């Protein structure tokens, strides 16, 4: 007992700034409109958070390596469209989902290849693929949403985005499972250690025998995979694959990750932080809607909150040093 105590570090308050910010936000909104914490609204909120949270989980790995993935929104739209059209064409929904995920992973891997073998910085590589896959989505869909037909009758398809399990929206359950997997992967496995190492010092990681290129490709694959998962859920929620789905979702995902304490310089970040960040952003939108705040002002408030959250974090970090 005693031994364990000495090895335990003292409670590090600064690690929980995002959580503190979230709690403060929740309290403020609740005081202004108690409906906010009605169970029904909280479930709504969680469901609303889920698409962004899933993307942000993948983004966390990417950002840990000091990378960035701007293409998630386009991958989301592209894979959503493919899954939807497969379902329309008679493919069983679960198979269509799997194919969508596989393609998402593939497109993610392609990002990784451009970045590692092509030596293009992540920002530019994924900016380019963002444009390409958005264009491809338009070409594939002819600019039309894909909807109707078997999509309305497939229980699996409907259930993924709209279903409930034990009274909890199914997307929320998926997000929770994804969170646990990502948490374990990042914080409890060798893979996660290598990710941190790569982000902290790529050269040293390479010298230590980490296959950095392979690792990076896997990480972008994960990001693509999660974008596709989010895409399938969104398609199911909307009952339709929109060619312009997911536009600028990368920004919310990045913001969630950074609010959660990750550094865009790499090597620093936590899965739980990202989850908190995603919840904060969702609470903000949901809360401001409940408070009936004019949508123009919503943007201003959102920007200010992100800025403050991150500034508090970086200030406390500074004091710690």
């Amino acid at each position: 007992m005693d031994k364990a105590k000495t090895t335990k570090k003292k409670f590090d308050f600064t690690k929980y700034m995002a959580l503190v910010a979230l709690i403060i936000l929740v309290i403020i909104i609740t005081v202004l409109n108690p409906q906010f914490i009605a169970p029904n609204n909280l479930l709504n909120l969680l469901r609303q958070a889920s698409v962004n949270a899933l993307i942000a989980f993948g983004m966390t790995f990417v950002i840990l390596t000091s990378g960035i993935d701007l293409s998630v929104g386009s991958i989301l739209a592209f894979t959503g469209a493919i899954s939807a059209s497969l379902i329309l064409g008679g493919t069983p929904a679960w198979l269509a989902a799997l194919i969508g995920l596989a393609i998402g992973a593939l497109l993610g891997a392609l990002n990784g290849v451009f970045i590692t073998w092509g030596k293009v910085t992540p920002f530019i590589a994924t900016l380019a693929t963002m444009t390409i896959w958005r264009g491809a989505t338009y070409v594939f869909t002819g600019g039309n949403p894909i909807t109707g037909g078997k999509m309305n009758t497939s229980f699996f398809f409907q259930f993924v985005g709209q279903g409930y399990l034990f009274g909890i929206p199914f997307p929320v359950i998926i997000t929770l499972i994804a969170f646990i997997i990502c948490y374990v992967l990042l914080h409890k496995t060798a893979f996660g250690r290598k990710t941190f190492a790569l982000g902290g010092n790529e050269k040293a990681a390479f010298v230590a025998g980490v296959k950095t290129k392979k690792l990076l490709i896997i990480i972008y694959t994960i990001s693509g995979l999660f974008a596709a998962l989010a895409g399938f859920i969104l398609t199911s929620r909307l009952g339709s694959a929109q060619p312009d789905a997911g536009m600028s979702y990368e920004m919310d995902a990045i913001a969630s990750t950074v609010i959660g304490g990750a550094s865009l310089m790499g090597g620093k970040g936590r899965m739980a932080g990202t989850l908190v960040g995603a919840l904060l952003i969702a609470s903000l939108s949901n809360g401001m809607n409940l408070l009936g705040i004019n949508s123009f002002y919503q943007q201003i408030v959102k920007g200010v909150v992100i800025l403050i959250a991150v500034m508090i974090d970086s200030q406390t970090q500074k004091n710690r040093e």
Partner: protein
Amino acid sequence: MQIEMKGIEKSFGTNKVLRGVDFDVHSGEVHALMGENGAGKSTLMNILTGLLKKDAGTIKVDNHDTTYASALDAEHHGISFIHQEMNNFAEMSVVDNMFLNKEIKTKLGLVDQKKMRKEARQYLVNLGSDIDVDSKMGDLTVGQQQMVEIAKSLMINAKIIIMDEPTAALTENETAILFKTIRELRSNSVGFIYISHRMEELWQICDRVTVMRDGLSVNTYQTKDVAENQIVHDMVGRDIGDYYPGRHPHLGEVALKAEHLSGKKFHDISFEVHEGEILGFSGLMGAGRTETMRALFGIDKLSSGKIYVAGKETKLTSPSVSIKKGIGFLTEDRKNEGLITEQSLEDNIALPSIDTFRKHGIIDKKAEDKFADMLIKRLTVKANNAQVTAGSLSGGNQQKVVLAKWVGSGSKILILDEPTRGVDVGAKKEIYELMNQLTDRHVAIIMISSDLPEVLSMSDRIEVLYEGKQMGVINAQGATQEQVMKLATGGK
């Protein structure tokens, strides 16, 4: 285990770095590898451990031709490489650093944090170290980081451990611990390849020494059979005599006076330095010398104290102010704070004085070229021209470039923090001569150095710090190492 490298060659582009090196090492010995900056020592080791591919030559391990595919491969075969530049992960914990890429896993495939912690602690305890394995690597001192690196080598049961300048950043104390460890391991038939620029260590710890020059192995000796002169001669290809040129100071007015300086890691430091004087600052690593000077120069915050430049009280709130007052600062961390390695020598040299090249707001490029060329010549920087990148030079020459920029900015007061760290003997001597030339022209120099012979030979007076406190000042003339060490370790 026995390793034999023969006729190793290696080129980077058109630059032939290794031109046929022979080197061997076996279990139970410490074999030193000496040579000037850029002689190819690190490159040779990178080849041995699979980080680089050789162009020609053979490597025999226990009489079998061997090429390791990667550093990991070499480790699996019992060869561990502690690099010259710390290859660690500052944001990660000590355990995670030690077990990176060789994590202990539970049956579920997850990392077994508990077991890893226990083992890590055990290895460190065996080395006589009480480092907290949960603390962040970046929070450790350089010496502690070095200990972790050594623990890492022990962890893989290394038969041969390569140490590339391990003591460059260690305190005397830490060095002693390191040597004790090396001796113990040697008696357990671990072999060492030991790279260092510190001559005296040859006779303290090494059994054999191989000297390299310009990509060739020149000679191999039993250390007990060879004198320092011979090694130095082999390294630089000529006799350089005593490389401390000696001091003949002509002191002028007080150039800089500090009164009761206090800051994060130092308290109530007062000193003065005269024109034409070299004031040495000695102390163990972590004594707060660097912190004092960083705060004085305006890089960090000074919490209290007064500074007088040329007799007038002056607030040095930032480096730019200090530079305007004629102060220059050669930082101990050359790569991160001294040079912009990707940019040309000229850009680096001209940076602190760039504002003086303005003609109607535009930089007078011709004047700048001339300025850089002149300084490169005057400080005998070995470079093809002023346009090559600073990063492409050897350590000693990089140090001269940093000096050049401060000389060029017209500094009347120069703070040199570890000016010869990682610099070979030839270059060292040139830097000492430069310091003498500068003081002859009434420049005041403050020199922080952890190299005792250097402090004793190149200072006029020596301030000694211990745990952020001023222990006393010694007149360098006739001072002994023991005198300094006594103050530096807190004794009175």
